[in-house]
């Protein structure tokens, strides 16, 4: 009996021992799979950021062509003392064309000339015009000006177009390439930081397109969103945490808030289109409507964050205030709310960051239009950063690829900045009760 028992227990232990190797192997595999998931996420993030970063780099510099232009009043078609209006209507294109023709006197054919004139950007004449309007004494002088180059020239200089390809496969033909190389040799081509990208609105020409309009549009939209959603969300959170009785109606409100947080954003766009644009006839494409729609969308986020911040304020604070004779309202507004404010602000900033990156609902209310002018207020037609990204990503011109990535980088910069502020606030004001 005794020996039998030992034997069987020995057997069991052996069995366990034998299976141990396999079980430990399984354990290792399981752990490796978990590790792999994390690594996959990290690798993906690195690839995504590196891809966008490398694609964006060319957009931050701008190729210029230096030309010597003769600003002859007769040539541009104005009198001796032109007014600003005369200058606005003047023909500066001709001056630039003359300068190019002087540089390459051997170009005679009409078609070739057209090619030659496309070396500088369509915006070069406006650049010259603005210079002359700023300083009319330039008229009649010979000056050297660095003109913005066309996006094809830009692509050649930055190596985006391979010069060694056979001519038939290359966007820039041999002749134009020869001109570019001649300009390069004479040191007339230079690269500068692309300030223009940050100071101008959208354009059909890649080299002239900038994101200032989109940044301002985003700014106005967020302003409206903040002005609407912050007070409403805080008020709702205070009510639900501090005043709400337990009844069906309040339950219904809570279900609605939780559910709205999970409704697809595009549905909010449909709401905006049907209610604010068609019913209330608010202006299309305006930051006002965009802001209203986004505030409805971010309300649940801010309400949920504010509620947990209010909930974290210890009851002793409330009881002390009530005990000293403060009313419920005074307790909440004088004591609970200030204590919960850092948490509420953090939640608000995170909600705003979410609103800044949102695209789909704004497409619905017409913020997708091509708008060159920089918006000056909340009712001007405008676009926002993510939609600018979407619009440029759809453009067939090569030059827009870099612009798109650069716009994404600007967008990500703002998002990181906002989140950093939120983290800083949380760290600085967080109290452990």
């Amino acid at each position, binding site marked *: 009996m005794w020996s039998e028992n030992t034997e069987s227990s020995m057997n069991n232990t052996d069995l*366990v021992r034998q299976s141990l190797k396999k*079980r*430990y192997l*399984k*354990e290792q595999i*399981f*752990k490796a799979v*978990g*590790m*792999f*998931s*994390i690594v996959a*996420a*990290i690798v*993906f*993030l690195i690839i*995504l950021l590196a*891809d*966008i970063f490398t694609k964006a780099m060319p957009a931050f510099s701008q190729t210029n062509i230096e030309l010597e232009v003769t600003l002859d009043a007769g040539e541009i078609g104005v009198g001796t003392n032109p007014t600003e209006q005369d200058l606005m209507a003047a023909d500066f294109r001709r001056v630039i064309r003359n300068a190019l023709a002087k540089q390459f006197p051997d170009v005679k054919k009409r078609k070739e000339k057209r090619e030659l004139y496309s070396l500088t950007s369509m915006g070069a004449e406006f650049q010259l015009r603005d210079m002359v309007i700023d300083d009319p004494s330039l008229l009649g002088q010979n000056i050297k000006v660095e003109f913005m180059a066309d996006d094809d020239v830009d692509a050649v200089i930055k190596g985006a177009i391979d010069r060694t390809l056979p001519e038939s496969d290359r966007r820039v033909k041999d002749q134009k390439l020869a001109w570019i190389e001649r300009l390069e040799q004479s040191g007339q081509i230079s690269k500068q930081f692309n300030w223009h990208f940050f100071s101008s609105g959208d354009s059909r020409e890649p080299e002239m397109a900038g994101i200032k309009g989109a940044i301002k549009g985003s700014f106005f939209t967020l302003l409206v969103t903040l002005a609407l959603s912050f*007070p409403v*969300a805080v*008020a*709702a959170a205070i*009510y*639900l945490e501090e*005043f709400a009785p337990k009844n069906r109606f309040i339950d219904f409100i809570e*279900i*609605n808030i*939780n*559910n*709205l947080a*999970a*409704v*697809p954003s*595009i*549905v*909010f766009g*449909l*709401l905006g*289109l*049907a*209610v604010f644009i068609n019913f209330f006839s608010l202006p299309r494409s305006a930051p006002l409507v965009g802001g209203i729609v986004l505030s409805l969308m971010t*309300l649940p986020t801010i*309400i949920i964050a504010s509620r947990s911040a209010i909930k974290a304020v210890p009851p002793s604070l409330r009881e002390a205030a009530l005990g000293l004779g403060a009313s*419920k*309202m005074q307790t909440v507004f004088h004591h609970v709310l200030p204590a919960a404010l850092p948490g509420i602000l953090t939640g608000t900033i995170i909600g705003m960051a979410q609103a800044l*990156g949102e*695209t*789909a609902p704004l*497409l*619905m209310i*017409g913020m*997708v239009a091509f708008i060159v002018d920089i918006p000056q207020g909340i009712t001007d037609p405008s676009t926002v950063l*993510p939609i600018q*990204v979407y619009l440029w*990503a759809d453009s067939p011109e090569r030059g827009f*690829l870099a612009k798109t990535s650069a716009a*994404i980088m600007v967008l*990500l910069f703002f*998002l990181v900045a906002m989140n950093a502020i939120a983290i800083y606030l949380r760290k600085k004001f967080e109290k452990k009760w």
Partner: protein
Amino acid sequence: MKISALIFLLLIFAAFSYFMARQKVSTAYRQRKQKSKILTLPKYFGYVAALTALLPALLMLFFLQMAEEPYINSEISNYIVNSDIEANEDLDLYLNDIKSADTPEKVAALTPEKQQVYQRYHEIETTTNRTITVIVLSLAILLVIWGMRRINTETPARRVFEKIIEGILLLAASIAIMTTVGIVFSVLFESTRFFGEVPIMSFMFGTEWSPQTAIRADQVGSSAAFGAVPLFVGTMLISFIALLVSVPLGLMSAIYLSEYAGSKIRAVAKPVLEILAGIPTVVYGFFAALTVAPFIRDLGQSMGLSVASESALAAGLVMGIMIIPFVSSLSDDVLSAVPQNLREGSLGLGATRSETIVKVLIPAALPGIVGGVLLAASRAIGETMIVVMAAGLAANLTVNPLEAVTTVTVQIVTLLTGDQEFDSAKTLAAFALGLMLFVTTLILNVIALHVVRKYREQYE
């Protein structure tokens, strides 16, 4: 008077009311002998007086403002009909022409007939505007005077004020309900109009989708087809691929982070997941369309497969990665809600960590995980930008992930971003699709939230 000026004036009235009431009460207090009987600060009387003047006047202004446009429209339409002016265009367009003439040059550019209507419009607008101003201002003045006379030291000013504030707070909380109601009504209303033109059955079960209505009847494809099945299948295909990527990766990374990882790995992995969650979807869309899709196409070609350049696979993969943090944080929540003694019991009986996780933790957390997956599915179905940029427009009825498919959200965007008149079946179809989307995600969300809540209660 402009609305902004009117509101400014009302605010001045309110401020006046505030100071007067406060003054009146403090004077009364000063004359009292027994200071201990004073229970309410004078400023509360001021607040109440200001709000009694301000709130009704603002409400009145709001309603009158709402009624103004329909009233003007009906008046001017009457005028047009009565005065035998031939409006051979659509009446709305006709009115629009007149209303958009806001500068003298634009007015001069109108036809004489329209100028006449414009004059009349201008008159009506001015009178209505004046009437509104007079009504609102006189109401405000009456209320200020009434408030002045009524308020005395016996008024329960603080209680009244706090009730008003509580009402405002309740109103703010109810905005969530109003939003939901607004969504339901706006999509439902337009959808019923759509289903008036296209039978609901052919929408739900039709297999051909080509919303382009030809301008002339004899053109090719003159009859638009609104069979939404290809869109539903496309949406499900892409969402399925996304879930196939995100659920295992998200769940495993949550398990690894909560059960295995040391503090160093956590310090790296948590922010990475947060950044992934914070990247705007348009960025993912750009990446999917310009990097992942060409890569998959080239890869497929090198293996001898024909892959569409807007394959469902590319959009699904990137969408899956976008949802990883979402699944991961939800799973993290439910796993940490499993009581510690279950874990310790299993480990104490000699199970390895992975055995504990697979045989004890996951079964215990299963309802919560299922809820999380449902929420993730609802996210994937409603996701817009990635598919708009990386999935196709052509409605192919296929489940092959290498071909291009289109989704409900893509079609909503394409139907509504063109320059379309608002009443065509094409734009209304977008609202019908929106209704389907809203209902589907609503059902998924309600089930998921319910399951998760029940699960939490189980271990509390």
